[in-house]
């Protein structure tokens, strides 16, 4: 049974210089106990999807499509009902743990806040629960009255995780949870997340720009480019045998330790991500694509089958419609 089902999601920000389409038609499906990784460059719309799931956008933002979270049609909920769904339906582990906590209130207080806001328990009970949650994420319960500035970056991120689990949500949205941490702490936090996810059978949407992180955590990966999903499939296979040239570039940017060949072919991707207000025609990736052909600028790409549960939006995949006359 799917916890989250997103259909043709379009998010358009209203800016002074005109509308900015940040997400341009995305379908997502997350089953119970499944981790979906969402990766892409800065500005590709991955975090926008994360906050769209709880409708956390500025008032004027246009959100179209369908979001069914835990049986609730999020986009048509009335404000009161929406507040009730927030954090109980899906919670968010924010990217800047350092700033996502109120500096003038204790951490236990802030973990318990989620519980008391939803009136799931009284103040005393919520505090006991907060202490349990802190223990669960590997912080001693006696630190419950510490203030955020008394914790290290990794500890703060643990508190954020405890917060996200406070209301037993159906889905946890992890929005770059390890970005600001050093590699050692990052590994610890990832391990903790993975353990908790397995133990509690959580469904999770893991947003990051770091593909190597996703391989460890996610069951499936979706790669985003310019507000669209360009490739989707099982994590290991997408990372090691990418179909879409963009995914190839992303995966190629990670050195394989012990792979002597890699030293001879350091790879990256030239150019900049497109301006969301001036997205290239056809396949949005064609100006940066190393294997682009003449149809690319005019071809409306969509996710075509690319073998064993995989899909990619590229003319070169097997499921793409035949283009006999243009294929080189």
């Amino acid at each position, binding site marked *: 049974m799917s916890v989250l089902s997103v259909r043709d999601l379009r998010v358009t920000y209203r800016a002074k210089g005109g509308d900015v389409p940040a997400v341009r038609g995305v379908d997502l499906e997350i089953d119970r106990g499944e981790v979906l990784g969402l990766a892409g460059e800065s500005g590709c719309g991955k975090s926008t999807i994360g906050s769209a799931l709880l409708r956390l956008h500025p008032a004027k933002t246009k959100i179209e499509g369908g979001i069914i979270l835990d049986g609730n049609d999020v986009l048509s909920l009335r404000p009161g009902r929406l507040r009730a769904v927030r954090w109980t339906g899906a919670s968010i582990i924010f990217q800047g743990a350092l700033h996502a906590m109120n500096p003038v209130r204790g951490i236990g207080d802030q973990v318990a806040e989620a519980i008391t806001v939803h009136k799931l328990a009284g103040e005393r009970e919520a505090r*006991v629960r907060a202490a349990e949650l802190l223990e669960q994420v590997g912080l001693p319960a006696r630190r419950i009255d510490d203030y955020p500035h008394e914790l290290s970056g990794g500890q703060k991120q643990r508190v954020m995780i405890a917060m996200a689990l406070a209301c037993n949500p159906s889905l946890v949205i992890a929005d770059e949870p390890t970005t600001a941490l050093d590699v050692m702490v990052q590994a610890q936090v990832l391990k903790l997340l993975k353990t908790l996810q397995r133990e509690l059978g959580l469904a999770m949407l893991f947003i990051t720009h770091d593909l190597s992180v996703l391989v460890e955590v996610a069951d499936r990966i979706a790669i985003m480019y310019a507000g669209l999903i360009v490739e989707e499939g099982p994590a290991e296979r997408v990372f090691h045998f990418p179909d879409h040239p963009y995914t190839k570039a992303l995966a190629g940017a990670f050195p394989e330790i012990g792979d002597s060949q890699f030293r001879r072919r350091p790879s990256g991707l030239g150019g900049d991500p497109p301006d969301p207000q001036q997205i290239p025609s056809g396949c949005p990736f064609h100006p940066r694509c190393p294997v682009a052909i003449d149809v690319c600028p005019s071809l409306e790409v969509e996710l075509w089958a690319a073998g064993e549960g995989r899909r990619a939006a590229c003319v070169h995949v097997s499921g793409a419609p035949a283009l006999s006359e243009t294929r080189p």
Partner: protein
Amino acid sequence: MIETPHQPPEAVVGTEVAPPSPPRDPRKIRWIRRRRALTGFWRVYRRNRMGMVGLVLLAGFVIMALAAPLIVSDEALKPATAPGVAFEPPTADFPLGTDDFGRSVLDLVIFGSRISLLVGFAATLMTMTVGAGVGIAGGYYGGRTDTALNALTNWFLVIPWIPLAIVLASILGRSLFNTILVIGVTSWAGTARLVRADTLSVKERPYVERARALGASNWHLVTRHVLPNVMPVIFANTVLTVALSILAETTLALLGLGDPLSVSWGILIFDAFDAGALSAGLWWWLIPPGVCICLVTLAFTMCGYALDEVLNPRIRER
């Protein structure tokens, strides 16, 4: 700089005892923490000479105001039962002479501290409540609410306060409560503007967004997240506003808009002025209340600056 003293030992112990549920009472721990923070604050404040002078002065006036009914009898303040002769210069019986009814000026000055301080604190409370309310509402909700409240704030900021106060005081009548009301109404705008600016920055912080994602209502966000973070701005303003409110009370009284039945320093000067103390050379009637107003205002200002220095680490370093 201040060398950091040894941290007081953890009031709550138990490294080895870390049960999943801490049975300790949250209120008690909060209280311990507050007390510890206060001791630390006091340690720094004590080193500030200006602040200490201001504080001692202030304490003197507050004690005087509280003890006034014990020192001065009611009869001594009533014109009918005044103990002395009118316009008597300072003597052993009346160290600061007497006024036109034969009341001791010293008694009047002592008793006057009550009204002056009361007006100062009450008007400040009002200024802060209205200012913080309008500032937070405008800054937090934005849009049309903000435009309207901002226009109102600007209107109160640019209008010269004395004419407005005169009009208000003459419409509402001369009473102690009206004096407080008039001062409050004419002085909240500055606070509102500062609080609004701070609210604008606080509401964009990620923890406010986190709390919104948590499912918190606007009321919860404002009272639990915005207000505690704007509090320093409100506090920094408070102490100086008290001094300004006392001055404002004096001004109103001097213009003949104070409550004639109550005894405040401003009223004292007004009465002396009215009775021609200036031309008659009755200096003992005019100078003492004036000096008191100066000293109280000075004391509040000194405390205010000292607080600012202690609470703002950037200034403290210098």
